[in-house]
């Protein structure tokens, strides 16, 4: 099924993607990356429709969308 | 006496104000002092650091390129600043946020879980105070009392209970470094 992969070295944990997702299936991880941010990740596995809206608003080209 | 210090961490960890507090403390204790921040575009990306000098003599350059003491509050700072420490110098590491181990063998390393201690005292916001306490404890370049006095000078409008808490953080830090 469709999914997104968040590149943890690019993601700055701004959370913009969470507002863009119609399915509200993006959540932020609790532990920060070596870059010092709390990166985004897919919440539940099966909720992503691959619409790509999250990647539209991501300022850091951190989201890869697979469909 | 000459102490060149470099403090580094994320923006928001209060490394800038920590540096100012050190300088102010040194001043109150009659030392020559200087403070110098990394500024401008260097800020982008969210890491901040500053140089502090506390000395018995006039300060020449406020830019500390070979620090006697380095305080690293986060992981990226370790990589960047460990190499700069003067041989025989001191490295204070915030072990709460820094996982990797320092490599140098020619320097003294003091690991203090600043965030953890700060949390115990009240809030992780004052992890920087714990680090300063550790510095005072380990070097004696300034005293915990000096820094405490400096607090009320620098944060004129701070509530007493806040100063209270900061003071405690300083003491816990000093203790942890001994």
């Amino acid at each position, binding site marked *: 099924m469709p999914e997104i992969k968040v590149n943890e*070295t690019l993601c700055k944990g701004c959370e913009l993607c969470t*507002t863009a997702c119609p399915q509200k299936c993006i959540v932020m991880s609790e532990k920060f990356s070596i870059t010092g941010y709390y990166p985004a990740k897919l919440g539940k596995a099966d909720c992503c429709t691959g619409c790509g809206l999250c990647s539209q608003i991501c300022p850091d080209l951190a989201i890869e969308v697979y469909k | 006496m000459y102490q060149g210090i470099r403090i580094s961490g994320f923006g928001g960890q209060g490394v800038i104000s920590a540096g100012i507090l050190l300088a102010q403390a040194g001043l109150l204790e009659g030392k020559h002092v200087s403070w110098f921040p990394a500024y401008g575009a260097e800020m982008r990306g969210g890491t901040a650091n500053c140089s502090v000098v506390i000395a018995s003599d006039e300060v020449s350059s406020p830019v500390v390129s070979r620090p006697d003491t380095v305080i690293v509050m986060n992981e990226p700072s370790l990589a960047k600043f460990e190499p700069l420490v003067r041989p025989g110098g001191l490295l204070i590491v915030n072990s709460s946020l820094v996982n990797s181990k320092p490599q140098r063998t020619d320097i003294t390393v003091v690991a203090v879980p600043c965030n953890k201690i700060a949390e115990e005292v009240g809030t992780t916001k004052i992890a920087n105070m714990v680090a300063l306490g550790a510095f005072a404890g380990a070097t004696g370049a300034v005293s915990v009392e000096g820094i405490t006095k400096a607090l009320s000078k620098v944060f004129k409008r701070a509530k007493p209970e806040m100063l209270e808490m900061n003071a405690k953080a300083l003491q816990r830090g000093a203790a942890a470094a001994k």
Partner: protein
Amino acid sequence: MQLINKRTTGLVDVPLRYCPGCGHGIVHRLVGECLDELKIRERTVGVAPVGCAVFADEYFNCDMIQGPHGRGPAIATGIKRSKPDCVVFSYQGDGDLASIGMAETIHSAARSENITIIFINNAIYGMTGGQMAPTTLMGQKATTCPRGRDPKANGYPIRVCELLKSLDGAYYLERTAVNTAANVIKTKKAIKKAFQNQLDCKGFSLVEVLSMCPTNWGTTPLEGLKFVSEKMMPMYPLGVFKAPEAPAAPAQEGGAK
């Protein structure tokens, strides 16, 4: 399962050094995608401003030049007139374009230079640490108006698209935003049009993008999105301000001598 949003070749493959939630990154990506889709990357020369986007010379994957603060349109003019085959764009912030660069902006439009301008309006001076911009809103706090912008002392915000509208040489003017995915998509359309106009030799095109600067607004990235919609848009309405079908209206004839 395949990747449906391959990274644009219009951007060099390095991490962007902008703050979390900064709008520059979004617009960078859109410009890069337009260079790809219009197949003009290899003949494009971009002008990077002085501002946070000074690093654009590193990010955009085409020939780039970085010049004096606010003079992008003049620099772009020099390039375009010297090498007309090139596609030339100037990427500028609000301090750069509307404050120190105001004369260059207006005159490049009046000359109807055949260039494309990407104008990032974030109502603040980002790079220098949050000073007042010509676009800073009434009452908005900045490090040079710490008590909030006050018309008596600081004057009124400037609406760039509305200002340029009266110029015969200005061919295409649109204001968009990047605070929602939908607006991001609209912004890309506008930017693409602005480049297409240049390919069609229509003259001066400018896209003003309302963009987030959480760092100097003192907001979280999420609050930044709200600031754009709730504070900026009422003052800076989105829309197309100029897009004649014919080339820029020929002005009144009148020849002495």
